[in-house]
């Protein structure tokens, strides 16, 4: 598993490297000393896993995650910020407290590897569109989530922000709906109208609507109008 280590302290990186020595499955492809370096290394090396320190000069680990479209698997390494990590509502991640306990590390990595086996490298080499299996980092005030795109039923634009609907939450991210639409896999996500992108997996009922449009109700209860122009495409996609 291609792995990148991100920490501003040389000794901390060295210690982690030596701890990871005993895991041949973890292939260290690089190290980064700050968020900006990490950002460019994530783009070029495409790691599947990152070990991420939270407190770093200029940008924190959280800010790095906010810069990424899709986050790789993340294991936070931190000395005393577990309260910050507990802010996560949606735990698709793990964290290690420095100095790292070897048993705890073993547990974390085993969990990670067994999950990875199950996933069968299905769409490993698909072109880089965000698929339903990708996770995105969402932060809204003090609360953070890693959300699997499959769990997001609706993106709704609201000024310069997008509301992300999943479970009972709808935090906002600072992005434009058009930019997001280009990145999302159109087999799972559909641009219903100027303001909405819906997850086709969450569609509950479809009714004909005025002017040849459609009214789609999602399993979360939201009702979204599909414009006439998009309705034909939508019917195409939803039929066999």
């Amino acid at each position, binding site marked *: 598993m291609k792995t990148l280590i991100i920490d501003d302290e040389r*000794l901390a990186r*060295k*210690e982690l490297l*030596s701890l990871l020595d005993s895991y041949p499955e973890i292939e260290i492809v690089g190290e980064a000393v*700050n968020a900006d370096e990490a950002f460019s290394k994530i783009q070029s090396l495409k790691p599947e896993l990152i070990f991420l320190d939270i407190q770093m*000069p200029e940008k924190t680990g959280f800010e790095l995650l906010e810069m990424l479209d899709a986050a790789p698997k993340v294991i936070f390494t931190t000395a005393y910020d577990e309260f910050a990590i507990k802010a996560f509502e949606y735990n698709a991640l793990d964290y290690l407290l420095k*100095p790292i306990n070897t048993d705890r590390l073993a547990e974390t990595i085993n969990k990670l590897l067994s999950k990875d086996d199950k996933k069968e490298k299905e769409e490993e080499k698909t072109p880089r569109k965000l698929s339903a299996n990708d996770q995105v980092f969402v932060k809204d005030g003090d609360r953070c989530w890693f959300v699997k795109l499959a769990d997001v039923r609706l993106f709704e634009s609201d000024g310069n922000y997008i509301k992300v609907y999943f479970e009972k939450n709808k935090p906002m991210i600072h992005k434009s709906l058009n930019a997001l639409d280009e990145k999302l896999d159109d087999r799972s996500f559909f641009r219903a109208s100027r303001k909405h992108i819906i997850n086709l997996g969450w569609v509950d009922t479809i009714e004909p609507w005025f002017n040849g449009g459609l009214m789609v109700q999602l399993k979360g209860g939201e009702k979204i109008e599909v414009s006439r122009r998009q309705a034909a495409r939508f019917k195409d996609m939803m039929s066999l």
Partner: protein
Amino acid sequence: MCIFNISITHLFRNIVVKSGLLEWKWPKLLPFVLFAIFLMTMCNSLLVSVFEYYWDPSSINTELDRKLFAGLEISAVYFLWTIIYFVFHYFERSTKSLQYEAAISEFELNNLKTQLNPHFIFNALNSIRALVDEDPKKSKQAITQLSNILRNSLILDKKKLISFEEELNTVKDYLELELVRYEERLNVDYDISPESMDFNIPPMMIQTLVENGIKHGVSQLTKGGSIGIKTHINNHTLVIQIRNSGQYLNGKSKSQVGLGIKNTIKRLDLIYSDQASFSIENENSDTVLTQIVIPETI
């Protein structure tokens, strides 16, 4: 007639307590109180007149000047009552708030003394662990330094002042450990006047400020920076200057000033009242200067 006085003042007291009037400042309170006295006098006079008329209908013919005189008498009673009431409550409240503030200060002082940043301790331990392989000798030294700091922070609870030398040694141990962690990203510089050693200072005070300088200054810079501690004697006072790379209040407002600084100011005030001073400012575009001036004796 006494019954009127008592019941009217009682009613007034209820209104005062319920409406939180005691919290009001004098200028706002005064017109209200004067108006209340006038109102109470009027009520009282009215009640007295009604009462007198009931017993003796001829009393309606009493001359106006006698009535006015009686009214004045009544208002004097209410005036006196109001003054006593408000003055009594004013003193009671101010002693209560003084006691409260003293208790809070004591609590904060104790709290601050024991405060050693856990983030620092665990990061230091983490770098020491890596150092064990790389440089065993240096790692042993680092363990000793960390023990010194922990020991000091434990004993210091009991002391109000320690010698400058003791404090300086703690700071040196602390900075040695930060050097292990930040390596070439941190430069440390001392310029200590020998007479400084004759002074006593509050424990962990320089330590807290140096730690602040690293946490908010040097550690936020990708390329790192420096921290310098300089002391000199000026007119029988000890002047301690801490310079660190970075910018104070970088884009933040004054209200976001950290607990470390607030507590330092409070501690100096509690121990030396106005004989000590504290300042923190941007000396130039990349250096923050923190300065404490401490008197020779209390």
